[in-house]
């Protein structure tokens, strides 16, 4: 009997990890890449928290905003991907060459600070989700920092990218838990058909928050660099565009399920939450333990995922701008600035969480504020660069694309500044 069972297991295991399956799996991975990874990293701890709050406080009313957000995300990411493919250079590289040393220097300092803030919130996400599984943060945070470190320094980029793509699959957990909330599809449908805008400060702030967390400054740098790293050429551009579109849509599908789940459970029962952790906890009695666990697991995955990408992406971006050696293939002493920046991000990011009495909410709050302040600058730089014939040749924006993209950037800038004003004056 026992032997029979182990035999069956072995058979199943072999079918799963057998050569054939791996082959089709690698083929699948070869086709998708930068766009999907970037977008999914974007659903990080901060994103999940914002979506949970949006759903639990304002129900289904914010759901429709995901449609224009998807549009804006596609437009912006497409510009980045196109610049990467055509120029073969990263965004910070282009900014340095076009706008000079001074602007780049200050931009990089600000970018470092906001990305550090984001990294801290990723490790906070790890801590929160593991606490739901009963693991103390003094254990989970150091271990996850070590995993992040090991993955990036010991693995090569190709294998790391595969791990990251695989991690994207775990976002499915939000979709599954979304269905566990037994949503009322009719109400959801009508929330899309009859979009409402409420003119109270709270609702507007939340709307801006949802947009702000979906379109972040660091993504533009990361996406463009990974497009360049993949060595895609102008002929392959069609694939890259598909990649970007699929990525932008998936990220918003996940966001949809999180907002929806929190709306149909927490909002309808009038439960107020402060964080994604609260959301996961509050879900247990309403949608079942599994939904709660899946929610927490999704948070863990998202946080770890973003925590492994943010520090390395920041280090690359800054070193590229200043012409410092930046490669994981070099030894520490050959690329001191690169490893220095990377280590600083990981250690500060994980270390600050472990300090007792750290005002985490305040830190994350200010990192969001800086995010909002720097985003318009970067978007405007991007549009100037993409319309520069010396860089883009025949691949500059067409007139229609220019109207659409300047309009998008204009609206996003306005929203970011609004959020900034709210943030600075409402406290």
């Amino acid at each position: 009997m026992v032997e029979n069972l182990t035999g069956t297991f072995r058979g199943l295991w072999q079918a799963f990890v057998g050569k054939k399956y791996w082959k089709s799996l690698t083929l699948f991975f070869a086709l998708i890449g930068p766009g999907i990874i970037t977008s999914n990293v974007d659903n990080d701890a901060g994103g999940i928290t914002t979506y949970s709050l949006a759903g639990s406080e304002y129900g289904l009313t914010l759901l429709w905003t995901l449609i224009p957000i998807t549009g804006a995300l596609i437009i912006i990411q497409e510009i980045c991907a196109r610049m990467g493919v055509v120029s073969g250079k990263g965004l910070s590289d282009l900014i340095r060459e076009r706008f000079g040393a001074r602007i780049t220097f200050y931009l990089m300092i600000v970018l470092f600070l906001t990305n550090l803030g984001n990294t801290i919130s990723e490790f906070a996400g790890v801590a929160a989700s593991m606490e739901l599984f009963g693991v103390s943060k003094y254990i989970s945070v150091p271990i996850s920092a070590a995993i992040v470190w090991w993955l990036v320094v010991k693995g090569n980029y190709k294998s790391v990218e595969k791990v990251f793509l695989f991690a994207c699959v775990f976002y499915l957990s939000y979709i599954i838990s979304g269905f566990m909330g037994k949503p009322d599809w009719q109400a959801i449908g009508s929330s899309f058909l009859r979009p409402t805008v409420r003119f109270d400060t709270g609702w507007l702030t939340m709307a801006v928050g949802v947009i702000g967390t979906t379109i972040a400054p660091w993504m533009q740098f990361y996406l463009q660099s990974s497009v360049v790293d993949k060595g895609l050429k102008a002929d392959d551009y069609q694939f890259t565009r598909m990649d970007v579109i699929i990525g932008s849509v998936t990220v918003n599908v996940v966001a949809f399920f999180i907002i929806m789940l929190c709306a149909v459970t927490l909002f309808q029962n009038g439960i107020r939450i402060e964080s994604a952790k609260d959301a996961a906890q509050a879900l247990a009695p309403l949608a079942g333990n599994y939904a709660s666990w899946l929610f927490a697991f999704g948070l863990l995955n998202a946080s770890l995922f973003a925590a492994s990408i943010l520090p390395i992406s920041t280090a690359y971006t800054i070193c590229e701008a200043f012409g410092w050696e930046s490669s994981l293939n070099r030894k520490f002493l050959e690329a001191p600035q690169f490893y220095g920046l990377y280590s600083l991000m990981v250690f500060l990011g994980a270390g600050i969480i472990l300090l007792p009495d750290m005002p985490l909410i305040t830190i994350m709050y200010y990192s969001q504020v800086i995010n909002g302040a720097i985003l318009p600058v970067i978007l405007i730089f991007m549009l100037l660069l993409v319309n520069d014939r010396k860089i883009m040749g025949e691949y500059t924006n067409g007139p229609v694309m220019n109207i659409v993209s300047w309009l998008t950037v204009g609206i996003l800038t306005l929203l970011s500044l609004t959020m900034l004003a709210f943030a600075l004056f409402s406290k």
Partner: protein
Amino acid sequence: MAVNQEPQVFLFLSELLGRRIVDPEGRPVGKVLDLTGNIGETYPPVTDILLRSAADGKTFLFPWRRLAEVNGKLVTHPIQPDDFRAPALRAGELFLKETLLDKQVVDTDGAKIRRVNDLQFLQSQKTLYLVHVDVGFHGLLRRVGLKGPINFLFRALFDYTLTDQLISWKFVQPVSSPDLLRLTVAQNRLAQLHPADLADIIEDLDIHQRAAVFRSLDIETAAETLEETDPKVQVSLIEDLDTANASDIIEEMSLSEATDLLGELPKDMAEGILKEMEKDVAQDVKELLAHPEEKAGGLMTTSFFGFTPERTAGEAMEIIRREAEDMDLIYYLYVVDADEHLLGVLSLRELIVASPEKALSELMDTRIVAVEIEEHKDRIADDFAKYGMLAMPVVDGDNRLKGVILFKNLLEAVLPKLGR
């Protein structure tokens, strides 16, 4: 620089840009936007100033030698009407700020890509020469305008003085455009680099610079560099060339490297290149291409020495001397009969110490270690480790010698598995 009585002054480009120029009476002439330099010379002399005229806001070129004073204020000699000309470059000239500042250059001394933070000039006998490129943190701070405060901080906190990190222009190869590579081709500094370093640099450059740098190399250097380059980059470099150029370069590569590269290329392109190549080389490549990459047949080369047993050591030596230049492997000689059956092997060392009249059949070692043509690379790696050889002969089912696997090529094939 020549020794002279005049004071020599170092100037940075960042100190000149944006400065006001006045005439001897102190009336404003314009503002410095850029400088032009003649890049053809070892240390490019600055020829003109690109300035925005104070009078009408237009841009003009103004000859550098018409400046009377450079220290402190920029003062011109009395203005002549023909001092100004429209901003068009003469042959060999380029705008120094636009083409160099903040751009990437190759430092051929350190074999690295650097970003230009500043340019340093030396003024000697009324002429300004571009002598150094500043790539250091100190130069960056000067540009940002934080040199003072940060220097103070470093001295106060660490008792450390930041210094400029300058590279002599002699060792700088600009790469930002194909024109730049052409202008400096008379002294193409990239040729000073080892092909392996050059390959690293090419991998780090962006796609356009890559193509430009690669095209500027002579065929032999290009082939050597290509051998050291990552396969993905190899393909993109070759795809940018026309088939005639591509086949010239690939012919120069070692047989096994050339085969690997052709195997990676799109099919129609590989066929086009094969057609352009010399018949016998193309034939060898085609045979090797028929084998799957992870098997012995895909790793081997057919460019080695095979002799019949009757040959004497002296004759063999003669042949080796004549043909070794073009062979992938010279350290082992394989002894085969008329039907290519592998009979024995001897090393170059054994051949050199043997007396010239002895036949190879007497010298050869018949305890042959060989692998089958279908053998998987992992098993071959084990054999290499066990027998400690530089190369492994490959035979078919009938013990006929088909090729030889070089240790180097096996290493490349199994390296991804070893990790770092």
